[in-house]
């Protein structure tokens, strides 16, 4: 009896061990497959458009980039499973990029737990970093924030996604953050510009620029400079009039340097206010871009302004201009104006901007912000204008560069802001949208190029053209008739076998 018990225990234990080993082997196999899946794509893309496969065009753009790139999802990987099919598509694409290129790393972080990282990015985008954000960061600290919706094209009529443009969105972001060094922004000096703008400079530094000062009459614009900031000039720039009269050398022609700078497709921001005098050379330069301002003109608005310190009715609340979603002027405030509660953007002590005809037909000129409809412009205490007057004008040009099939689209912009207090300490804090607008400008101007030649990948159109009665008839056929026939056959077989 005891021997029998011993045998039972022995063979029973052996059997259990065997089962445990086999189960462990199965788990191990699947674990290995999961690990392999993180390095190598185990997906067979069945779609016509190869929606889940990186195209050869995108590979061409990315292969020349050696800079380490890190792509952060701001939530844990498995949490994305509950965000729906489209967000998973974005995740799949980004993970495919991570598998394809050794210098691209994909990370998942809980933005609510990783405060340090979150704060670093939230400094640049005060209101928009959230668990849905996707951050593409280069080794030099430059980064771009993306959202899953930005990876898709939406049909205007239905509001539904009809195509996947993930490759374009992601490739663009990777190119933008892969610069070997930070782009420079040069504040001009020599015209009594405002130099006591610590907060503005800090904001631009946080936005990824290296901030320098430059006296154009004495120096050439350093290489790597992407933007020139002319902040509240009180004296005119040296230009062609002085060169022609022999008062300056060609090397001291500041306007010529600005013009050359813009030929290379760079960016300029100019701030003026009601006290800015006539500056003929600078005004002529800006007019070629379709921009100008009304000197000695102050906008007041009793209804559309903030009360508080300073002169009443001059602390204007800017009105978002949403006329042309394709214009650079719209992209300046898009992240704010499309949010659920757009913050106020302040234009204090402002002068109206004039939008005219640019010399180049390819230049698009538009206002990003205007005054409210109740505003009035005063010159010499007389009303000279009223209504929605431009407060920020954006002129932009674009062109394609590169070889056929690998062309990229690049932009050049001139922004004229009708207040010199836009980025002052009073308004650059989180309460207003001014800081976010500065970041948007920095982002638009910091980007080098946009890849061309990458196509949208259109989804299947599964819509059916069928009338209701036909659909109902077919429903009855499929869901009732076929099963009924099967049931009849079954019943007949059952009856036949009963009688055997």
């Amino acid at each position, binding site marked *: 009896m005891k021997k029998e018990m011993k045998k039972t225990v022995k063979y029973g234990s052996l*059997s259990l061990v065997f089962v445990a080993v086999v189960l462990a082997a199965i788990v191990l196999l699947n674990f290995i497959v999961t690990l392999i899946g993180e390095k190598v794509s185990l*997906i067979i893309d*069945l*779609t016509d458009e190869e929606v889940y496969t990186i195209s050869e065009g995108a590979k061409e753009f990315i292969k020349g980039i050696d800079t380490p790139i890190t792509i952060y999802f701001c939530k844990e990987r498995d949490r994305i499973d509950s965000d729906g099919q489209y967000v998973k598509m974005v995740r799949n694409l980004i993970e495919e990029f991570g598998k394809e290129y050794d210098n691209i790393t994909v990370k998942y972080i809980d933005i609510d737990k990783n405060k340090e990282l979150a704060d670093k990015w939230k400094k640049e985008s005060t209101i928009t970093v959230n668990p849905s954000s996707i951050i593409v960061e280069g080794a030099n600290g430059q980064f771009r924030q993306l959202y899953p919706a930005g990876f898709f094209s939406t049909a205007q009529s239905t509001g539904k996604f009809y195509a996947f443009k993930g490759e374009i969105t992601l490739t663009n972001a990777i190119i933008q953050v892969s610069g070997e060094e930070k782009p420079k922004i040069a504040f001009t000096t020599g015209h009594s510009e405002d130099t006591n703008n610590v907060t503005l400079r800090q904001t631009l530094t946080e936005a990824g620029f290296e901030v320098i000062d430059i006296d154009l009459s004495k120096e050439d614009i350093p290489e790597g400079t992407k933007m020139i900031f002319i902040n509240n000039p009180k004296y005119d720039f040296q230009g062609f009039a002085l060169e022609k009269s022999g008062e300056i050398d060609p090397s001291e022609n500041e306007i010529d340097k600005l013009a050359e700078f813009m030929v290379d497709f760079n960016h300029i921001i100019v701030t003026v206010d009601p006290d800015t005098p006539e500056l003929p050379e600078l005004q002529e330069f800006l007019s070629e871009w379709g921009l100008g301002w009304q000197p000695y003109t102050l906008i007041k608005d009793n209804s559309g302004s903030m009360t508080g310190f300073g002169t009443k009715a001059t602390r204007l609340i800017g009105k978002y201009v949403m006329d042309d979603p394709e214009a650079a002027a719209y992209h300046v405030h898009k992240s704010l104006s499309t949010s659920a509660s757009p913050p106020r953007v302040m234009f204090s002590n402002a002068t109206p901007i004039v939008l005219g005809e640019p010399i180049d037909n390819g230049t698009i000129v538009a206002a990003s912000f205007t005054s409210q409809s109740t505003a009035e412009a005063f010159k010499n205490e007389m009303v000279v204008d009223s209504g929605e007057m431009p407060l920020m004008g954006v002129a932009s040009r674009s062109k394609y560069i590169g070889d056929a099939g690998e062309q990229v689209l690049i932009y050049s912009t001139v922004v004229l802001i009708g207040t010199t207090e836009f980025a002052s300490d009073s308004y650059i804090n989180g309460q207003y949208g001014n800081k976010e607008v500065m970041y948007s400008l920095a982002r638009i101007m910091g980007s080098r190029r946009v890849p061309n030649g990458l196509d949208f990948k259109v989804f299947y159109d599964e819509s059916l053209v*069928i009338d209701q009665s036909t659909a109902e008839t077919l429903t009855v056929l499929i*869901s009732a008739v076929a099963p009924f026939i099967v049931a009849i056959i079954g019943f007949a077989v*059952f009856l036949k076998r009963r009688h055997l």
Partner: protein
Amino acid sequence: MGAIYKRELKAYFTTPIGYIFLAVFFAITGLVFSLTTLLAGEDSSTGAYFGFLVYILAIMLPILTMKLFADDRRVKTEQLLLTSPVSLTGMVLAKFLAALTVYVGALVISDLSFLILYLFGAPPAEIIIGNTVGFIFLGAAFIAVGAFMSSLTESQLIASISSMLVIMLLVLVSLVANSIPVEIIRVVIKWFSVVDRMTSFAAGMIDLGSLIYFISFAFMFLFLTVRVYEKRRWS
């Protein structure tokens, strides 16, 4: 093994069980198909149909598998199987394949409904094929679960209900896991979720990792079924 396979397959169509399964399966899938495609018109979505199909299988397949082993125990023909010259693995495999054949046949026949869609639009053939492949493997895993549960009892009712519970647990596990705050635990639990693994197929991809998961899942439960019979043979 071939003889057992043929016998089991024949049994599905000489008794009411096969016809009941097919009739109910066609009725439910036909109705869901119509609701998600024909009656939806402009909003037709094959992905939605296949999304519902997971839950349909979770309820229907246990009906197919409940008699696989439980019936033999009930009518005491189990001893014949245990003493037959066929290996236990062969016997289990034969019964499993018989159930799988009936299921795959039903699935393929129900997929013929998609041909109707070509009269009114352009349904995505790749997504339909990809999903069908995925559902064959998913069904194999569910049938293996049902076979194991059937081997544990002689009551077909208990076999079907317990199979449904286990399968529904696998289907709904991701819902439960979402509320777990610790990532590693959540990931481990979600790893068992079949719904998450089927979303790739619904989107037009064949995920080799998921296929290997379903195959190893089926293998595991068939292995356990063989172990149950090994124990029964020698005790």
